[in-house]
Structures are given as C-alpha cells and as structure tokens.
C-alpha cells in the first residue's frame, strides 16, 4: 500500500539519517565548544506570541486550534521562540547568553523547488552581544562549523540590512518612495529599481548611486572605495571586517545589496553559498529590536543552517567519497 505524505514533507531512512546525524554531531560539537548550550522548544506556539516578530518570508503557515479555541502555529524558525525563552526564562540573567538548537521548522513554501515545508535547522543565537563583536563571533562560529563538516568551497555573503535604508535617508529620498525602492531590492529586481529611480524625481547622481551601490559585491575593497554617503552607511560592515580572524575574512564576500526576506533583521545579514548548490545553505544576521518586542531589550545575532542543504552541498563536493562518515567516526575536528 502507498500512503501519501503532505506536500513538502518526507521520510528519512537509515542511510540518509546516518549521514545527517554525522553532520549534526559535528555541528553540535562546534557549538558546544564555543559555549552554546542546546535548547528545545515546542514545535507549536501561540500565534499571538510569534506574531510579535515581523517574519515576512518565514511567516508561520500551519495553524491549529487548541481546546480553548486559541490559535496555535507550527514554528517557522527558531529565532523567535528563543527570543521568547530569553524574555521569560532568562529575564534576570547577565548577558551574553549563548544558545544552539537542532529543530524542525515549518514553512508554506511552494513545492517542487527543492524547498521542503518541514526543514531541519541547526543554528545559534548570541543574545546580549552587540555589533560588531557579536557579529564577528557568530561569523567565526559559522565558518568553524562549515570547516568542521569538511565543506571546502563555501563562501559567506555579508551585507547590512540597514545599509540601503540609511543610504536612502542620507540622500534625502522622500519617505513615501522608500518602501517601494526597498521592495524592488528585496525582490532582486534591478531593472525595476532603475525605472522607479528614474521616475522618482531623485537627482541623476543620487539615483546612480542607489542603483550601483547595492550591486557591489566582492572582497574588502568594496568597502573602501565608496562615495561619501555610502561610505558612512557601510561603517558597520567595516567594523565587523576588522574583527574577523583571517580564516573567516577570506571566506567573506561583502555584498552591499544583501537583504534577507525576514523582517526582523536590523544590521549585518549573511548567507552561506556553495558552488554545489543554486541557493543559500543557510544564513542569519543581527536582530537588535526583536528581544525588546518580547520585553527584554538586548541586541542579538544568530544564524541557521539548513541541514539538508548542507548535506546536498557536501554530497555534491564529495561525490561519494564517503569522507563525511569517516570524519564523523574519526572524532570531530575543528
């Protein structure tokens, strides 16, 4: 008998589980060594609680009612539940706080695009450590994790969610025009951005800057040679760069147009790329306002890796050498 599964979900059988387990064991080892304690939170939460965050892309998609009629949702990420944990269970604790997690999250993505609706995330949250130090720590842990799994050719795209908005403000872009311009950038539509700029009445020089700056990406040199208003907007990125250890810095691609589709990011944002995969393996960023919405004003930064995508990238790089399982058996490097 063949019994169907809900769209976007799947079973994981022993051969695959063994490999996934090898990856998560390696990641857990790195997290623990850096002082990140593992937490579990319920897969179900009150909708009203998660709604305190602006999730945009990661809005919860699955809802149920409990016996009192309250609306429950399946969590769509782990950052918001951990913000809740910090506000309620660590209300008086001295920061910084370090947590890690391995958890399934649920999203209403369109199927058939290599995006599951149930995805296993492995990540950390560093709460109470402001920019740039906290950001540099998160990036360092991220790179140590990826190095420990044996991923060779990965790069980390690093941008700043506040950069383009700050640039618009300093160039005097009218307030009502800003959301549409930002939306074009979020949708990665540079043709649309160019049109809107041309129609907006912003001077030609400023328009050129608003179109050109978010297309700059590359090594640290992209931070150096910026025109004045953009130079100021990129201050945060330069400060993070100064703190990065060499082996982390060499992996970073500075990307002045990087914006993530999750609303709560306030500063540095990053994504992990590997040539073996057409989409990011994971990402993260600073969310300095989120904890305040839950009642404990603390700056924070974190990242999540999509374990299945990391697995695919490793498989793509290794092409059946079995190196991953060997590493897991040999004990954990990095």
């Amino acid at each position, binding site marked *: 008998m063949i019994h169907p599964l809900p769209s976007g979900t799947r079973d994981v059988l022993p051969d695959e589980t063994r490999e996934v387990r090898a990856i998560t064991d390696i990641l857990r080892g790195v997290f623990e060594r850096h002082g990140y304690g593992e937490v579990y939170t319920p897969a179900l939460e009150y909708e009203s609680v998660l709604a305190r965050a602006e999730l*945009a*892309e*990661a*809005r919860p998609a699955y809802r149920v009612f409990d016996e009192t009629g309250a609306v429950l949702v399946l969590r769509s990420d782990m950052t918001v539940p951990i913000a809740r944990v910090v506000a309620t269970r660590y209300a008086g604790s001295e920061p910084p706080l370090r947590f890690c997690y391995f958890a399934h999250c649920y999203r209403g*993505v*369109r199927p058939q*695009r*290599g995006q599951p609706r149930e995805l296993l995330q492995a990540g950390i949250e560093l709460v109470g450590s402001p920019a740039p130090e906290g950001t540099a720590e998160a990036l360092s842990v991220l790179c140590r994790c990826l190095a420990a799994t044996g991923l060779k050719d990965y*790069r980390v*795209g690093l941008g700043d969610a506040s950069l383009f908005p700050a640039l618009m403000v300093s160039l005097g872009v009218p307030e009502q025009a800003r959301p549409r311009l930002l*939306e074009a950038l*979020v*949708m*990665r*539509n*540079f*043709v*649309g951005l*160019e049109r809107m700029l041309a129609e907006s009445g912003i001077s030609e020089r400023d328009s050129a800057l608003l179109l050109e700056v978010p*297309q700059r*990406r*590359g090594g640290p040199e992209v931070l150096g040679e910026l025109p004045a208003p953009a130079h100021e907007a990129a201050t945060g990125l330069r400060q993070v760069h100064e703190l990065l250890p060499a082996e982390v810095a060499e992996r970073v*691609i500075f*990307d002045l147009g990087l914006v993530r*589709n999750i609303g709560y990011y306030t500063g540095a944002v990053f994504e992990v*790329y*590997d*040539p073996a*995969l*057409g*989409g*990011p393996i994971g990402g993260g960023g600073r969310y300095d306002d989120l904890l305040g919405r839950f009642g404990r004003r603390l700056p924070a930064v974190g990242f999540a890796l999509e374990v299945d995508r990391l697995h695919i990238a490793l498989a793509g790089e290794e092409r059946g050498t079995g190196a991953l399982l060997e590493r897991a058996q040999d004990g954990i490097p990095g």
Partner: protein
Amino acid sequence: MSPINGLTIAVPRGALFEGTVDLLAALGLDTEELRSNDRKLLFADIGVITMRPTDVPTYVEAGAADLGVTGKDVLLEQAADHPGEGGREVYELMDLGYGRCTMVLASKAGPDPAREALRRLGVMRVATKYPRIAARHLEGTGRQAEIVEVKGSVELAPLTGMVEAIVDLTATGTTLRENNLVIREEIVECTARLIANPVAHKLKASPIDDLMARLRGLPAAGGA
C-alpha cells in the same frame, strides 16, 4: 571556443532566440552551431543551454545556469505578488531591450463584450496563457473575473464564446486583428531580460559584472 567569462547561460528558443544569439555573437561567442543545430540542447563548449523561455527561470534559480535570458512576461507570470511569497529566486539584472511586446486585454470588435458581461453578470471570463498576470491586473483594477487558462491559441476562446476577453502578449497586433479582436487595455510592456542565479551572482561577481559592462557597451542592448 570557451564559454563567455566561464559562465553558463540559459538561452530561450523561440521569439527571443535570434536576438539573444546575436547578442552572444557580439560578445565574441562562436554561435554557428547554436544557430544551425536546433535539436541540440546543451552546447557545453560555449557554455550555452537552450530551452523554452518559461523554463529559463527554473534552470537559473536551481543554479543549472549562472545567467539566463527570458521575457519580462515570463518573469511577471512566475513572480511573487509581494516579497517573500514564493517568487523565483533570481536577480533581474538588465533590460536587454529586444523582443518588445505588450501584454494586452483584448475582446471582439464592436461593443466590448467584456464590459457588457461585467455590467450584467458581474464577472468577465478571460482566457489567457498568463493566469497570474491576468488575475493581478483585473484584481488591481477592481474587476471580478473568471480566468480560464489555455495552452494554445488564445484568440480562439472569445471567438467561440467561451470567454468575453483575453489577456495575451502581442508584438504587432496582426494576429489579434486577423481574428477580429481589438486591444482594450495595455497592461505592461515586455522585453528580454538578463537574469542571474543568486549564488552565482556572488560567487562569480566579477565575470558577471564584466559581461554586463560589455553588454552595456553594445548598441543592441542596454541602450533601450
């Protein structure tokens, strides 16, 4: 012969093919086999893969090609209505200017049957190959519509009385005129666009930027 800057490019067969191949030739690519062999799909030596225009975003999003060329109509049809609502994760980098067409709403000549249906029946039936563009346009203009998706010649649908109007792409309007249809509304202008995979856009930043700079320098593109 080697691929342009080491990049793999998804090239659309059909109306945009000639313009795209001309562009690649102007960039110095040896396009002779590409022009002469329309059965072959993969031209590994020049970094070109060919496919239907609607498949270009699929291959580029998955990273099977670093760059691609497809029509704005295809991108609009596959786009999210708002950020983060499941649109294709590709960068729209450049308007290449050629393949200019207009997405229009058309109905039979004479008194507009669509307007009549809307007035008397409260809803107009619209046949299209672009159900999302059509739905978005009609919703955005406050009209109730029943969208009928067809795969073949859309002009047939209003002639048989199945629908009152169509939403379709037209370059010269000839096919519409020959079928006694008139354009009632122009929805959006569509041209060929250069799109990129988001990961390639970072990992191959300088080859892509260099290719774009060269494209901007050509009279055929970018100047539009």
